[in-house]
Structure formats: structure tokens, C-alpha cells
């Protein structure tokens, strides 16, 4: 069949643009280290977090597809595979982040911990060595699973092929491990920025953000690959429709989790918890939080309610881009307040690293996509996926 050879050559313009934007991010970051390291580390953390979430969404979606025995997305599964291959780069970004701990987390200063009973209580967990070790361990686990999972679809050995029992087990195990590790990672990276505050739903909130941003990227890549050729005639309206519905569901889920956390903290009104929203409910931060809700949930919700909208590629890609913008705003609303206090500042030190990280992610993923056939020809469910048809 002709589908065995669906290679993809990225447009040089696209590669050049992404490379330049990534370089721009890097230059801003390095310059920031000398000129304004307080702020650039905040931007760096956002970029790192955004990058890691997108890369992790790859193996996460892949495992979900295998676990649920889905066949509809088989033709598109090289996209999450390529996304997951950006994880080693995320690890490098994470190692650099360790150098920025003093600018980001107050618990990293021994002098502060000494005079703060609560931080002293938490110091067996919140300390630089622990942070670094956990970061390395989690990335090791993620990279291990991601590589194993994406190797499955290339294997022609039926016992380790994409639909074997071994793959199913591996996927189920990854979903379980991922839920734990991603919660821990976010307690470390984001929640501990306000080390007195705590929320049990925090890990799930980040997971919801990861799923919606990751889905948005997968949509953008799928429609782009169709336009560029390799998925032409393979990506059906039904695929776009289903992915748009997933985006709808993930953003709605994100809003649900946001509301659970906010409503319960507002209602119970306990000082230990309200501190988180007190400074976010004032001035520009409150405007940012409310616009994030509108951009990350309100707009996609209204735009994707109708069937025709979910099948309209131009509209769906735009909504996906809006969701990515919403994700960046959400990160800023979380990272900004503890670093800047009541004075919200948005400038090159924040935009540069985030833009650079996201461009770098797209650059890596597109290059990974061009390495293999864009269609997993060895998957026995490919035919089913290509003839996928819903009402």
C-alpha cells in the first residue's frame, strides 16, 4: 500500500523561524541572567513548565490510546510519539532550572527557613538536594517509559508490537506512575513557590492543564501535517471532530478543577489557604485570572459547542492556539504573584523564555516527525483508523 511511505520534509522557512525564535528565547534568558535575573528566572520556570507539559502529553496520550484499545487515532499517533521525544531536552532545561532555585523559591534560603517554623517543618522535603534528586528521578522515569512506548509502534515483533499485551501493561503502568510523579513534580515546581500554602487538588489541576495544552498542540500538528502533505487523505473530518471534542472536554475539565479549588477555598475561608487567592484577587492579577478563565475555557467552550465548528479545520486550529495562549496566561497567573507581589509586570523577561521554549518544543517535535514515516504502518489498527467514520 502507498501508506507505508509517508515521509515528511519540513518547510525550511518554518524550521528557520522556529530556530530563530528558540534562539531569541535563549538570548533573552542569558541576557536576563546578567540584567534582571529575578524576573528572567520566573519566565524560565514558565517556559520549562510549558515545555515539559507538552512533551509529557505525548507519552500520556499514547498510553491512553493503548490502554483504551482505541483505533480511531492510530493514523495520528506519530504525533504524540514525536512530542514525547522532546523529553530529554526538557531534562536539560530542568537541570538548568536547579541553578535558579534561589531566585524562585524562598525555602531554598537557609536563613529564611531558620526563622520560619513552618518552612523548617517542611525542610525534610523542601530542600535543594531533594528538589534536584526528585527532578532527575522523575525525568528518568518519564524518559524511560516514553522511549519504550514509542518504540512499540516501530516493532514488528508481535509480542512487543503496538497492540500486544505487553504494550497494554506498559501503558497502564505508565498512566499510574505518571499520575503520581506529575503530582509530585508540580508540588515541587509550582506549589512550593508559595511554600506556606497547600492544596490537595493541585496535581490534578496541572494534569488538566497538561491535557488541554497537549491536545491543542496535537491538533495543530495534525492539521499542519495534512496541509503539508503526509496526512493528506488520511486525516478525516471525523478525526478533527473527535480531537476538537477532546479539546472541549479537557478545557472544560480544567475549568471544573479550577472552580473546585477556588470555590472550596473561598467557602471555607481558612487563612492558610486564602493567602493564595488574596493577592491574586487584586488589581491586574485578578484581571489576569479572569481573562485566563475566559481564554482557556470560555472561548473554546462557546466555539466548539457545535458540530460544524468541530469539523472546521481553520476554526479548530485557531481555538487550539487560543488554548495555548490560555495555558501561558494560566502559568503566569501562578508563577507571577509569588515573585512580583502586587505589582504585575509583563515584559520581554517573561515573554522571551516562554516563546523560546514553546518554539523550541515545536522545532524538536517537527524534526522528530520528519525522521520516521508519519503513519505507523505496522499497527494492525491502521486500516480501521483510516476508514474511521462517525455519524
Amino acid at each position: 500500500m502507498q501508506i507505508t511511505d509517508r515521509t515528511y520534509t519540513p518547510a525550511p522557512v518554518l524550521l528557520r523561524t522556529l530556530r530563530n525564535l528558540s534562539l531569541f528565547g535563549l538570548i533573552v534568558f542569558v541576557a536576563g541572567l546578567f540584567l534582571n535575573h529575578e524576573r528572567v528566572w520566573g519566565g524560565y520556570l514558565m517556559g520549562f513548565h510549558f515545555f515539559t507539559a507538552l512533551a509529557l502529553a505525548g507519552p500520556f496520550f499514547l498510553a491512553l490510546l493503548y490502554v483504551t484499545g482505541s483505533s480511531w487515532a492510530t493514523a495520528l499517533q506519530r504525533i504524540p510519539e514525536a512530542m514525547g521525544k522532546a523529553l530529554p531536552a526538557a531534562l536539560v532545561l530542568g537541570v538548568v532550572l536547579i541553578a535558579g532555585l534561589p531566585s524562585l523559591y524562598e525555602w531554598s534560603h537557609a536563613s529564611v527557613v531558620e526563622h520560619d517554623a513552618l518552612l523548617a517543618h517542611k525542610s525534610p522535603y523542601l530542600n535543594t538536594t531533594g528538589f534536584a534528586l526528585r527532578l532527575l528521578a522523575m525525568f528518568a522515569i518519564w524518559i524511560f517509559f516514553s522511549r519504550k512506548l514509542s518504540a512499540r509502534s516501530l516493532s514488528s515483533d508481535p509480542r512487543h508490537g503496538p497492540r500486544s499485551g505487553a504494550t497494554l501493561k506498559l501503558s497502564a503502568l505508565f498512566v499510574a506512575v505518571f499520575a503520581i510523579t506529575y503530582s509530585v513534580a508540580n508540588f515541587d515546581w509550582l506549589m512550593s513557590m508559595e511554600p506556606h500554602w497547600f492544596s490537595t487538588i493541585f496535581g490534578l489541576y496541572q494534569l488538566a492543564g497538561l491535557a488541554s495544552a497537549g491536545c491543542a498542540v496535537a491538533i495543530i500538528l495534525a492539521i499542519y501535517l495534512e496541509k503539508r502533505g503526509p496526512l493528506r487523505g488520511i486525516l478525516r473530518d471525523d478525526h478533527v471532530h473527535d480531537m476538537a471534542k477532546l479539546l472541549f472536554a479537557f478545557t472544560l475539565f480544567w475549568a471544573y478543577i479550577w472552580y473546585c479549588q477556588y470555590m472550596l477555598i473561598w467557602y471555607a475561608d481558612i487563612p492558610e489557604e486564602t493567602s493564595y487567592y488574596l493577592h491574586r484577587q487584586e488589581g491586574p492579577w485578578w484581571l489576569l485570572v479572569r481573562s485566563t478563565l475566559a481564554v482557556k475555557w470560555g472561548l473554546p467552550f462557546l466555539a466548539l459547542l457545535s458540530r460544524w465548528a468541530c469539523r472546521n479545520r481553520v476554526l479548530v486550529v485557531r481555538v487550539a492556539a487560543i488554548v495555548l495562549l490560555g495555558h501561558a496566561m494560566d502559568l503566569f497567573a501562578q508563577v507571577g504573584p509569588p515573585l512580583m507581589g502586587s505589582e504585575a509586570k509583563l515584559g520581554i523577561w517573561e515573554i522571551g523564555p516562554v516563546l523560546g521554549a514553546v518554539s523550541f518544543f515545536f522545532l524538536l517535535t517537527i524534526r522528530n516527525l520528519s525522521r520516521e514515516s508519519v503513519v505507523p504502518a505496522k499497527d494492525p489498527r491502521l486500516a480501521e483508523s483510516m476508514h474511521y467514520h462517525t455519524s
Partner: protein
Amino acid sequence: MADHIATGETPLITGGKTPAQVTADVFGPLDRKPTWLWYAAFLLAASALIVGVVSVTYQIMTGIGTWGLNRTIGWAFDITNFVFWVGIGHAGTLISAVLLLMRQKWRTSINRSAEAMTIFAVICAGLFPLIHMGRPWLCYWVFPYPNFRGPLWVNWRSPLLWDVFAIGTYFTISLVFWYIGLVPDLATLRDRARGLRKKIFGFLSFGWDGSARTWSRYEVACLLLAALATPLVVSVHSVVSTDFATANLPGWHTTVFPPYFVIGAIFSGFAMVLTLMLIARKVMNFEDYITMKHIGAMCRVIVFTGSIVGLAYATELFTAWYSGSEYEQFAFNNRMFGPMGWSYGIMVGCNVIAPQFLWLRKVRNSLPLIFIITLLVNVGMWFERFVIIVTSLHRDFLPSSWTSYLPTWVEIGTLVGSFGLFFTLFLLFCRFLPMIAAAEIKTVLEHPERDAKDADRRAA
């Protein structure tokens, strides 16, 4: 349908059934007299129901003082049972609505009974707040209707009022969804019946004619209802969780409660569905319809949701330590090692450890082991609510008011009665309505001849 043969998968319905055989298998038992097994089960269920009726009557005539509540523990058995039954009622709508939207075709064998179970479970759940009112004849006070009682009126900021609306909506939609799904099968019943039965089923099936247009409308209606019901699966138990999570009580107030309660509800609901289905397939000879494939899929849902529940327990414990709040830490210490620590042990053992055995293929292929695990999960999920409610209350901020709690015979009788009501309704349902959605089953049957023709055409 040919595709899963190509990928080497087993079909959903085994035994090479034809549509006519499906009709005979599903509707046949309704034409015959019930078996002795059914009578025995019905007798048992009805007896339990009578125990409940006696207990509740005595309690309403005497007052809530007949319960084991005291100055510290104002909520115990009744709310535990309420949350337990609402939870059981979650699998039905998840199976029928969410799995329909996700095009999981294995749902067709179990959706009818799971939905029926949902409705009966929500009826059981609804009884407990009603009984707890003490004066159930004033229950209409929970509704905000125009009145002259001045400023004393329903409190819109109370999660208990949200419960009224959340559960009322859920019950209505589940009932409508279940009924719409029944219509084609009611028409089959009508076609098989004579005399008065024919008239009754004719009325109930809305003059279903089975034309292409009718089917098309029917499918659209099901999809729309599924989309309406899906948010309800999440909202009901989220609202129930706020009964606790909005309070300032350590052990109750934690932000993860809404999603964690939803997952717990799906977990317990699936365990109950599986318990009932394992019995039903044996008693009704439905082995070809509820196959090992269906059971395996349900086992996977159980181990998945059970693991999330375990993660939520672990997160709560970690956060209790991490928060540095001595009240939080005390609440969880007391929960695990206090005088009621045994109940925490049962909860973790049944909800987190027991389902982990379902990772093993050997266990997933053994019906007795699965049956035991689902029973354990049912017990564990009842204890989860007991642990959350009672152990958080019994040692509050003021050590002088610390007490213990023991249920009285009235409370135990009411719990037994709720099981009696549930099983009585379920057994009546098995007797008078088709337990399996025959019309939907016919859409997932194998058609070897037609598939062979299709394959020839494709090859050519």
C-alpha cells in the same frame, strides 16, 4: 465489524447469535414463570425491606433520638448510607452516557441493568435525607416555592440545598435516559404479548414502529441525552463532596474532594454493577452476552479508579504533613491510629490493596476472585464514607467533648432496609423488563456472511 477479526480480537457477543436468538434469550425469561432462585432472592430482599420499613416507622414515630448520634457526632450512619448509595448510582450513567460518547461498544450488554441500578440506588440514597429530617412530611420545605414565611427560607449557600437540585436533576435525567433506551425493547415486548399486556406495552412504547426514521430520531435523542447526562455524572458527587469540603473541619475540608468523590463513586458503582452482573449472567444464563471481555473491561475500570482513589488517600496524607497544621495532622493520625483506626484499615485494604490484584491476568480470569474483590470494594467504599464522616467528627477541637459512636439497631435496620429496597426493585425489574438492551445488542452482533461479502468486495 470485520476489523476486529483482522486484529484478532474476540467478538463482543459469543455463541454466534442471530438477532432472533437474541430476542429469544432476552425476552424468553419474561414469558416464563420465575425460577425458584428468583423467588428465594425476592423473599430475602423483601424481608430485608420489611426490616427497613419497621425501623424507619419506629424511628419516625419516636424521633431521631433512636439513633446513636450524640453531642459530638451529629452525622453518622444516615449520611454514610446516603453518600454510599449516591456513589453506587454513578456507574449507570457513566456506562450509558460517557461510554456512549466514547463509542465503547461493550457497554451495550450491561447498560440497561446498570442504569436501572442507578435509578434504584438514587431512590435509596434519597430516602436518607428524608428520614434524617425527622419530620419527613415537611420535606417540601427544601424547595424554594413562593410562600409567606418571611426571611426564613432555603439557604442558597448551603451545599445541602445544592444536593437537592443535583440529585433531583440526576435522577430525572437518568430515568429519562433509561426509559428512552427501553422504548425499542418495550415495542418488542408489545409485539410478543397479547391482550391487556399488549395494550400496556403498546402505550409504554409510544407506538414505536421500527422505521428508519424512528431509529434515526431515537439515536439522535440518545446522543443528546448522553451529552446532557455526562456533566451530571461529574456534578452530582462533586456537590455531595461539598457537604463536607466546604466545612472547616480537618479531614473534611480538602480541595481534592470533588473529583476524588466522583472517582470513588465510579469505582464503587462499577464494583456493584460487576457484583450484580456476575450473579445475573449465571442465574439468567447470559454468559454469551456478558462475556469475559465485558468483565475484563469492568475490572480494568475498577483497578484504574481504585488506584486513583489510592493516590487521593496518599495525597491527603502527604498534604496533612506538608501543611504543618497540627489539626490536619491530628485528624489523619487519629483516623489511622485512633480508636477507630480499624475502619481506616478496612478502607485502605478493600479500596486500594484488593483491586490491585486485578492487574494479574489470572485474577481477571477467575470469576470467584473477581466476585470477592467487587464485594470487598463495596464494603470498602461504605467504610470510606464512614471513615470520613465519623472519624473526623468524633474527636473534634475540644477534647472534653470527644466521644465514640455505636450504631443502634434502628440505624442498622435502616441500612439493611435500604439494601432490601434496592434488591427488591432490581428483582422486580429483572422480572418485568428486559435486562439486556436487546435492540442495541443486535447492532454489535457478528455477521459472518455479510462480512465475508464485504471483504470480497474490498479485495476486488
